[in-house]
């Protein structure tokens, strides 16, 4: 047989991501970033084609997440997507990130875990949007 396809719920999540105007990340159960959509590219200052898949360690630091008030680095495990992965529950925060284009942006982001129809944990998604004053 061919290389195993992704779980159907991840495929459908990617289909949703590719069809909406809201920036969206899709990660697999190991936390690897397996897709982000075109609206997310605007905020991240890079394209999925350029970045490809990223490990949790990579995406957790690549965009330099910082606390909006203190400017301190937000540890990867405190990011909503990490919480959705590790604690299997939704999470939300507002942070500052710096895209590959060097531009810093304030974003709000919400992440939630994905469960397949057989109650199998298959990953998580995060939606985010730029918060403009």
């Amino acid at each position, binding site marked *: 047989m*061919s290389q195993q396809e992704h779980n159907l719920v991840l495929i459908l999540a990617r289909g949703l991501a590719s069809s909406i105007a809201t920036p969206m990340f899709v990660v697999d159960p190991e936390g690897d970033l397996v897709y982000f959509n075109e609206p997310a590219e605007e905020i991240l200052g890079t394209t999925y084609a350029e970045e490809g898949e990223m490990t949790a360690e990579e995406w957790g630091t690549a965009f330099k997440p910082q606390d909006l008030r203190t400017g301190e680095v937000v540890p990867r495990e405190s990011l909503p997507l990490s919480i959705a992965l590790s604690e299997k529950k939704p999470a939300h925060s507002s942070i500052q990130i710096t895209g590959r284009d060097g531009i810093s942006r304030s974003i709000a982001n919400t992440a939630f875990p994905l469960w397949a*129809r057989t109650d199998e944990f298959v990953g998580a998604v995060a939606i985010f949007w730029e918060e403009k004053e």
Partner: protein
Amino acid sequence: MRARIWGCRGSLAAPGPETVRYGGNTSCVEVRLDGGELIILDAGTGIRPLGNSLLPELPRTIHLFLTHLHLDHLEGLGFFGPLWRPDIDLHIWGPPSPLRSLERRIARYLSPPLFPVHLSDIPSQPTFHDVPDDDWKLGGAHISARPVSHRGPTVGYRIQENGQAIAYIPDHEPALGVDLRTVEPEWISGHTVAHGVDALLHDAQYTEQEYPQRIGWGHSSTTHVVTFAEVCEVRQLVMFHHDPMHSDDQLEAILDHARQMWNGRGEGPVLAYEGMDLDLT
């Protein structure tokens, strides 16, 4: 391994003079493994004549693989002769659901008021199995069942024996939110099931004109099924699950369109019809 199609109509049985060439019975395919084991794919109305044909040499054990529980894939079950034989060991396999067991979900149909007899009173006392996540063996064959894109829990089946493989995905909308031409194979629903098979029996319900009004209903257009088959590098595409509104003449026009588009390996697409034999030896 051999296969015979007993029903290839989608959604609703469609008997009548306009459907005699391809048939009006809903989904049912008989698969015989080299060791003689019998697998039946889906229990549409085609399973009634299949059951009758089995009576002269009724196998002791029958495996029924259900892709999902929409009525056109289940409605023949109560009229499958071996169901009423206490000496038959009937195993019914289907997609799992986190909410109710396969038996309870099927009992919603096979019980009053929708059916006169309750499932628990049926003589063969079928054994129900959720299809496993991993491949399993049946006789000399390797079986895979994988979730595919359709409304509600649905799986596609791949049966592989002695180097030959058949895939059965009668209800499938792999192009929902996905460009099949550009996306990587691991992002295509059903790719693992269908890749490299000798025969793919696949949803081909809608024309290009019909599909835009039915996006998300869980079925494929002609372009989708042809593209899917090409991407999966199948040897023979068998267009299946014909729309009940399509006459024989319309199906042949759809086939012409599919053949014009076909750019894959192997033979060009064919239309499934009742009585069609697929010899996979």
